[in-house]
């Protein structure tokens, strides 16, 4: 018990000291560990990117970067937590498009608004890809569209979730080609894959990263990106085939509203430096991620254009409850 009497004050004092170290901050950002919040399950695209960034970020920022998970509601739980966090730059969260645009539009109260997330940097995107099984009768996008035209609603496309990039990519394809498809949402891009491999859906509207993992079993009909992917250069883009569809998930980081601009800049520069690290870029490319280089202003502006575009696209659909 004597040991205990010595230990208690020591433990308490050291914890107090720890706390004071964190109160006196702000002068030279960053001075303490940064919490990098991931709003999706470990193992997903957001998590893989963050885990790859972690080491390089720590090198650039010269501080520890702690990755925590705040999962739920398709990201909304984490983002509504972020906007209530201290705006000191020590809490940052991965943010996703189109999620952070469409959730506030569709849910009424998602717990945050698109504008409340102060955007720092957009570092990667995964374009949508329309894939079928290798042994499918559809060899090209034309085959696929021709069949869908003859059989309205009979073609089923699996994808990740409702009102996500996969869902919107399907809607855009329906509009551009004048066909009716049946979109079936799964709980993630991963759980849609076995549905296609098992022949339970006709095809998938998935991400290029997913397609890259299953190159030996999938046939990529078209990619919804401005240019072809380096991982599968044989797969055409929708634009080449005459359909103006560019859709995908964009991933970046955000901070709470009212975070000082100079801190945002330090963070944005750090993410840009990581993106330009050849070692990091190589790993991302292998996994079929497309790197993006959008700073705070550019990213915010990009979101405004996307928001206007989605509002227009969905105006004749019953998205709002």
């Amino acid at each position, binding site marked *: *018990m004597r040991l*205990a*009497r010595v*230990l*208690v004050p020591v*433990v*308490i004092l050291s*914890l*107090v000291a*720890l*706390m004071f170290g964190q109160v006196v901050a702000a002068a030279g950002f960053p001075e303490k560990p940064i*919490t990098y919040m991931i709003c999706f399950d470990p193992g997903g695209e957001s998590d893989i990117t963050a885990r790859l960034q972690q080491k390089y970020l720590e090198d650039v920022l010269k501080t520890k970067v*702690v*990755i*925590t998970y705040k999962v739920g509601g398709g990201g909304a739980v984490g983002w509504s937590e972020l906007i209530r966090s201290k705006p000191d730059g020590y809490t940052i969260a991965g943010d996703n498009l189109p999620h952070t645009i469409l959730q506030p539009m569709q849910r009424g109260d998602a717990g945050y608004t698109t504008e409340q997330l102060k955007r720092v940097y957009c570092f990667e995107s995964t374009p949508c890809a329309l894939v079928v099984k290798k042994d499918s009768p559809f060899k090209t996008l034309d085959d696929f569209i021709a069949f869908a035209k003859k059989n309205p609603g009979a073609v089923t496309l699996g994808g990740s979730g409702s009102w996500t990039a996969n869902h919107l990519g399907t809607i855009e394809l329906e509009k551009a080609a004048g066909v009716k498809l049946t979109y079936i949402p799964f709980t993630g891009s991963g759980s849609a894959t076995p549905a296609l491999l098992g022949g339970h859906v006709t095809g998938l509207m998935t991400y290029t990263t997913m397609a890259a993992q299953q190159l030996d079993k999938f046939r990529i009909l078209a990619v919804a990106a401005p240019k072809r992917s380096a991982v599968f250069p044989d797969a055409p883009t929708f634009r080449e085939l005459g359909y103006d569809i560019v859709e995908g998930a964009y991933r970046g980081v955000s901070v709470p509203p009212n975070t000082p601009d100079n801190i945002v800049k330090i963070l944005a520069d750090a993410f840009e430096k990581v993106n330009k690290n050849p070692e990091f870029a190589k790993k991302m490319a292998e996994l079929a991620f497309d790197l993006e280089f959008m700073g705070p202003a550019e990213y915010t502006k990009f979101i405004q254009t996307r928001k206007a575009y989605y509002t227009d696209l969905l105006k004749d659909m*019953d998205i709002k*409850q």
Partner: protein
Amino acid sequence: MRNSNVVASILMLVIAAILWPQMKHLTYFGIVFPRAVIVALVAAAVLLLLLTLIRREAGKHDIQAPNLGTVAIVVALMAVWIAIMPWLGFYVTSVAVFGVLMLVIDPSVRNAKSFFVSLAGVAIELALFYVAFSTLLEVPLPRGILF
């Protein structure tokens, strides 16, 4: 009314009544599953109620109410624990509530000294957990005005 079947059925009917109107604004795909479940729940509750009445078991008092006062105090203490955690910090709150709980559970503490010795032991126990969770497991435990 001390029959468990009757109370349980009524409880389920109340839950169904609270949730049913909330489905008004949902789309077909959002509603199809919960609606089926609520309908089944109401059916099961009504069936149980009817069976109990037919078998004339409704008057059978089979609920043994324990000392609800103690339960209420413990639950309230836990609620306080959770409520003030974000302000006072996880560690401080836990040690404080822990101390009160020890007194509630076993009021027959012989003297102040033995109580504080146990509390010191508890403080170390909780500190170990705190450090393990916040640093090793990287769980961001709530910090308050102290730490």
